[in-house]
């Protein structure tokens, strides 16, 4: 399944949820979503700092002998 299909599925799920949930819960959800988004942004900043400098070379050089 492609990512587009996956996203579509999540969106459909969210739509269903929205229609079944009370509107009074919306602000809480938005607040939670914003918090999660902010957390993810911080995490991505950190990843930019720690990710191996030369990704291509790092990936190419990681070669293992097969095991069990």
């Amino acid at each position, binding site marked *: *399944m*492609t*990512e587009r*299909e*996956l996203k579509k*599925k*999540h969106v459909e*799920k*969210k739509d269903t*949820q929205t229609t079944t949930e009370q509107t009074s819960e919306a602000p809480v959800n938005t607040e939670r979503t914003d918090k999660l988004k902010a*957390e*993810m942004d911080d*995490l*991505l900043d*950190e*990843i930019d700092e*720690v*990710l*191996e400098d030369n*990704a*291509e070379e*790092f*990936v190419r*050089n*990681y*070669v*293992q*002998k*097969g*095991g*069990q």
Partner: protein
Amino acid sequence: MAISKICGIETEYGIAAFGEFEGNPVGASSLLVNVYATAQYRSRTDWDFDDETPGSDARGFLRQGSMAPLVETHLVNAVLTNGARLYVDHAHPEYSSPECSSALEAVIWDRAGEVIVTKATELANEFLGPRGKIICYKNNSDRKGNSYGCHENYLMDRSVPFPKIIQELVPFFISRQIIAGAGKVGQENSANSNVEFQISQRADFFEEVVGLETTIKRPIINTRDEPHAHSDRYRRLHVIIGDANMSETSTFLKLGTTALALAMIEDSMSPKHDRTPKSPIEALRQVSQDPTLSYKIEMADGSKLSALDLQEEWLSCAIEYIDHHGGEVVGGDDSASQIIRTWERVLAGLRRDILTLSKDLDWVAKYALFSAYKDRHDLTWDSPKIAAMDLQYHDLRDEKSLAKRVGFKTLVTAEQVNRAEKDPPLTTRAYFRGMCLKKWPDAIVSANWDSLLFDLGEESLQRVPMLDPLKGTEKMVGTLLKECKAPRELLDKLGA
């Protein structure tokens, strides 16, 4: 009635060497084992042991006072005071945890394994200095078609027919990926080149349903029959299909749900319907390649169920099983209840929206993180940066590991893990093994899963058999071990 699901995890770590050991993973792995075993041996001088002559040591440890681990790289096997084995297997450092009696214990001693391999790597790098560097990864593939394993072992009742185990476990293992998969970008099997992200590290490498192999034509059910215990009573089920997990919840559920499933099989309380897939290998891969969890597996009887449907079926039988039998076989009622609650919560999350589990499960954490990173930098799934993240997720170093940055919920404390680096579990024979090694390191010439061999300077060596994994616990031998001043006294009291 099912028997206690004593369990353990063996992990082959990925190893990258630069400088002196570049292209020589066996040498690099041997160095890790050596420096760690040497350090642990030396640190034991503060133990309350008899003033016996520090003798030669055939457990794979270096002689006390011996130097230069580098020249002794032929020593590639060590039994540790926590009851585990650290050794070199197939060009990888491998940590086999001690026998544990619950999934939570297995998590603690698996995490202790990470601590041990991390310390071993640090010691090796100190030793190498400017001459080289070693880095270890807790993963299962190099993304180029080479795989190495993370196996589980479970104690089973020998009287349960193996064909029954096979029939019931195949669909369980195929569906288990959705809670225990460690996630992977792309695929390593040319059968399908359009895979962007998949749930399991290992699914690409399985080609058979049942078999004895572990390095080629890997089977979903491995038939290795090496009980390391009374062979008339016990079987050790050797499970090779799992991924090495960074998330404690993934490891916990992997062990906990499998232990429960095996107990249910032994007591004939597993799901009633035959869920044998029409094509198990195809099903295994399709489930792995579908992070939407919507793929329906076609069963031999024509019915179609998703991996989530199958897991929910097992969960509902497990609840019934625990109501009926209690949780003793999986480490007690509290342990059983924690497995059931976590299993329920995770399956409900997967049913509702997988992203609610980004701090619980490895594959979901990876999926969420990589997707967000990809969107931020406008990358595609096949970007080298995403591939680098896929590897670096499993880096054991705090300063590099991505898994340690995603904020996983934890189930055990750092203190428990640190203690488990040196101490064995209290609840299995690992206690006897570990404590004897702690107390009388120079009197034990070799140790393995089911025996200890003492050399007391007498005419013959004394073997203490430990054929029952449920014996030798702290409850059974704790006082005895405390009271004995010398190993001879212990052997006398044991009647050896």
